[in-house]
């Protein structure tokens, strides 16, 4: 067999049949794009979730499931079933084993973004990604009761700058009909982009959250009982409860001991979770669905490859004369078989290359929308080993399914009457 001749003939043959093969290649391209996309997004979503919080040893909240506590406190998904008493928080803050404690108070929103009541410790101790601290790109951390710091995405998408005044909405929904319009907040600073849920947060002081809710009953302000901004500034505004707290433990070895103590806390029923363990639990739950999704996608690729082979087999019935000419001129059955293998593999390689390009183009177009809509930071990066292997498996699968017409052609070449097909 002559590999260069086989390659040259296969290329010419594919080009000659390009119109027929275009559609089947397009189908395969789309299915491979889907396969790559699912794996790429899977990796990115995991990366995005894993990098959302780092350096935090424990997440503390009212007694609830680990996943629920993780999701509402860090990812702003879902709601707390109960609150954590401020006294308990203070008591924990006094624990010698705990290095730092960040209070988080959730509930309100601003144009679909969660409002997070916290304090300076959030800026000082919260870390994301590879233990990276938060930074302000504009202005400063809030110092007044009615000042607010915006996450990078909130500032970018809503076009806010420092000095702007914003009005928070009561409740955590995307749409709210009750606003805290008596107490506008002034933007004092904007956080640097992190690619985490922090970017989608609106950060105010615990006192600020407390102030705007004084005089509210059953979710609406009671006439004449609310405070003016100036009155709020001089009033003691310590909250009774907060939603959760993030904790850093002085010595990692003490983490489990502190966790156990919090889980057995006598003052109120609390839960302390390890973020890494909760995330692992999340992936365990999602893993089954991911596997199912990958299976479905792989099945789509197999169907596309089957379509490709069907087309090649159909074309084969029109190629008897061409094969006869090649055989009569001395081409071996293995050369004829290799043409089919090369053509099928060549189409799979073309589809894989097109799919990779298509995926990156789609990513360029969709990534900003994913970030804005779902807060998912999908990075444009080289393919991982697993993704490359997945892509490599497509031409290999093409080689395997190409063996069907190749074996058929080889048998045709070997059987009696290899002369001109008449």
């Amino acid at each position, binding site marked *: 067999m002559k590999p260069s001749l086989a390659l040259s003939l296969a290329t010419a043959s594919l080009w000659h049949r390009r119109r027929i093969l275009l559609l089947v290649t397009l189908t395969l391209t789309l299915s491979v794009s889907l396969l790559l996309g699912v794996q790429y997004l899977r990796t990115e979503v995991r990366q995005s979730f894993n990098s959302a919080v780092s350096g935090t040893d424990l997440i503390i909240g009212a007694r609830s499931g680990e996943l629920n506590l993780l999701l509402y406190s860090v990812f702003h998904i879902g709601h707390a079933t109960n609150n954590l008493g401020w006294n308990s928080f203070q008591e924990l803050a006094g624990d010698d084993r705990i290095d730092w404690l960040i209070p988080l108070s959730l509930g309100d929103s601003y144009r679909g973004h969660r409002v997070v009541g916290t304090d300076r410790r959030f800026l000082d101790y919260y870390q994301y990604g590879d233990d990276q601290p938060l930074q302000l790109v504009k202005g400063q951390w809030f110092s007044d009761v009615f000042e607010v710091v915006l996450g990078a995405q909130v500032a970018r998408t809503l076009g806010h700058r420092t000095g702007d005044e914003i009005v928070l909405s009561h409740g955590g929904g995307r749409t709210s009909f009750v606003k805290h319009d008596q107490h506008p907040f002034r933007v004092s600073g904007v956080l640097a982009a992190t690619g985490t849920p922090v970017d989608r947060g609106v950060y105010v002081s615990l006192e600020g959250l407390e102030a705007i809710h004084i005089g509210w009953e059953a979710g609406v302000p009671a006439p004449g009982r609310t405070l003016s901004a100036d009155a709020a500034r001089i009033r003691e505004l310590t909250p009774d409860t907060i939603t959760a707290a993030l904790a850093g433990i002085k010595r990692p070895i003490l983490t489990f001991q502190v966790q156990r103590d919090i889980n057995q806390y006598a003052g109120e029923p609390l839960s302390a979770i390890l973020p890494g363990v909760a995330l692992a639990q999340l992936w365990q739950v999602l893993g089954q669905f991911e596997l199912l999704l990958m299976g479905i996608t792989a099945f789509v690729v197999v169907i596309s490859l089957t379509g490709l082979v069907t087309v090649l087999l159909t074309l084969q019935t029109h190629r008897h004369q061409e094969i006869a000419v090649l055989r009569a001129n*001395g081409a071996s059955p293995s050369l004829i078989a290799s043409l089919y293998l090369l053509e099928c593999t060549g189409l799979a390689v073309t589809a894989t290359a097109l799919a990779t390009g298509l995926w990156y183009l789609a990513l360029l177009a969709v990534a900003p929308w994913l970030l804005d809509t779902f807060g998912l930071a999908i990075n444009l990066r080289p393919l991982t080993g697993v993704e490359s292997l997945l892509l490599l498996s497509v031409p290999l699968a093409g080689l395997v399914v190409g063996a069907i017409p190749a074996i058929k052609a080889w048998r045709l070449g070997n059987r009696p009457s290899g002369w001109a097909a008449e």
Partner: protein
Amino acid sequence: MIIKTTNLCWQWPRQTARLRFPDISLPAGEHLFIHGPSGSGKTTLLSLLSGLNRATLGSIRVHGQDLARLSGSARDRLRADRTGVIFQQFNLVPYLSALDNVTLPCRLSRHRRQQAGDPADAARQLMTALGLPMETFTRKAPELSTGQQQRVAAARALIGAPPLILADEPTSALDVVNRDRFVALLLEQAARTGSSVVFVSHDPALASHFGNHLELLTETETEANP
């Protein structure tokens, strides 16, 4: 002898009918005209002489080699190196240009390539000698007329000066004028390269071009040697 067959028989797999062919002894450089009715085994005989099929019974020596003793790949190699082939129709690889079709044997055989010297140049000379206009050289098979396709096939069979050319009713789709012209050109070029031509046709009018004749009758009958 370039071809020598004795008691040659062919039987299709899973069929009881057997073709028995007359013995052939063809000296190198001489031509043989084979004619006979449909079903008499003309094409089958060519496939046996080319080494594509193995004889069921009898001895067949081509280019001095006993084809029965050669493996399939050795017969493929022998055919690529030393035999040119022209079919009745659909002679060309559709996705190759006329020029590439002519040089195809040189890509399949180092021996033919060496014999041709510069394959592309040799192909152009042969195509010109066979009366093909230069603008047809780069055209693909579907863009050529039947007559042009047959001449391209003839050029392909002749390139690299193979000692034997097997032509299976190459003129059946041509009119009388073009038929005679084609045969004359083929034999003229074969004479230049010293190739023997085994020409199969059901048309006895062509017999006069050839020095040796073989008539095939029915499936089980034999006829005289050439």
